[in-house]
């Protein structure tokens, strides 16, 4: 088994795109059911949600308010899972409920262990 990081990208800034409290509760259930399913396979390692506000440090001591990227989507959180290989990791990642929203994405990256 190897560890993979799943990075959740979605629009967490545009006001009109944010869910109502009821919808948010429904999303939380979907998210927890998805993560619970991974944990039930003993493949969950850890993960956290991230704040919507942030700072970005750049070359020449420039610090800007963030988070931002070239697109509207920013990293909303991350999860670390255990998987046999990329295919296995992608299979788990593709069940992530944020993928029901257009424009959202889950990036799958393998954790490199020093050899």
């Amino acid at each position: 088994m190897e560890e993979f990081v799943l990075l959740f990208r979605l629009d967490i800034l545009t006001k009109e795109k944010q869910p109502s409290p009821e919808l948010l509760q429904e999303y939380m259930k979907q998210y927890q059911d998805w993560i619970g399913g991974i944990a039930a396979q003993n493949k969950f390692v850890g993960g956290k949600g991230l704040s919507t506000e942030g700072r970005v440090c750049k070359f020449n001591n420039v610090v800007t308010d963030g988070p931002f990227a070239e697109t509207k989507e920013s990293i909303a959180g991350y999860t670390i899972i255990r998987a046999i290989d990329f295919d296995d990791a992608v299979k788990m990642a593709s069940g992530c409920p944020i993928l029901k929203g257009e424009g959202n994405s889950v990036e799958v990256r393998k954790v490199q262990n020093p050899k």
Partner: protein
Amino acid sequence: MTEGELIPHLFRTEYRKIVSVLSKRFGFNQIEIAEDITSDTFLTATQTWGVNGLPENPVAWLYSVAKNKAKNHLKRNNIFENKIVQEIKNNASAPQDPEIDLSPENINDSQLQMMFAICHPSISTEAQIGLSLRILCGFGIEEIADAFLTNKETINKRLFRAKEKLREEKIDIELPPTNQIENRLETILATIYLLFNEGYYSVSQNKTLRKELCLEAMRLCKMLVENNTTNKPSVNALLSLMCFHASRFEARFNKGGETVLYDEQDTSLWNPELISSGGYYLNCSANGDQISKYHLEAGIAYWSTQKPDTAEKWESVLQLYNRLLQIEYSPIAALNRTYALSKANSKEEAIQEAEKLNLTDNQFYFGLLGELWQNIDNKKSKENFQKALDLSKTETSRQAIQAKMAKI
């Protein structure tokens, strides 16, 4: 209570108190002397009470005899330490009259400190449970052997080695510094929970002993709740969890001593006082910003005390299992989570999730699949129950599976 019943009863309630106070006074390295003096006290009691009848206040009698024996021991030690050793050093000082403090406060403090000394991460959890049973619960070696389904010799060796190790580590009988309390408490809670489970799920047929183990685990946890330093949210959560589980103790066995499954239990045998205590400690556990696995398990155990199948119940149980598994995986939690998923979402979804669990050496895995397929594909249901039957090891569980198969 007759004299014949009184002494074993007092042994159970007072042995641990006297041993804790004496060990605290002598130091952990002399714990065996403390145990000897305490046992000797009970021996004296048996002999004297048999001849002279019961004293007016048996507990006070025990304390005063134990005190005298301990003082004599300390005086002998003192004479050697102060007279002989000092004489050699040519610097004699008068030996002081040693005091043994058997006040309720000191008894309580000593027992609590003893708990920290025994549940020390340097010894195995098995040894921690054994020592706890002996020193904190006053269990006889034979009873401990019975609980672990082994013999006296093995237990004696295990306890001896554990004490040796604690002596080598120079463990003191004291509370750890405040900044280490939470950390050390984790080990204690784990030991208490194992002790409880030993009683609750043990294969030992001795029902009385099993119940005693559960009650002792609860008593130790209650001691932690009653002390300000150790009254932490996770401690309350564990106590709540044990109260909820213990509430079904009488309903879990039939008259022949066989296990009665949850669905078939007579709910009028569930203990309402324990359920309400569980609720009380669950409320107390909400005092803080940390959610331990005990909080989540207590939440699940709460819902087990609510028999009606409501949507709210299963949605709550599912979410509690989702979070519990993120803190700590166990096959049984994974299976229970999948069952809750079938109740909260759908059987079809649960089957899909069950097939990912990879628990093909576990009879409960096939039992769960058997149940999920029922009324969707009865052939598959039967096949899975059959696999569960092949894997099951006890007569009780075979009968339970066969009963389910017969209903398809």
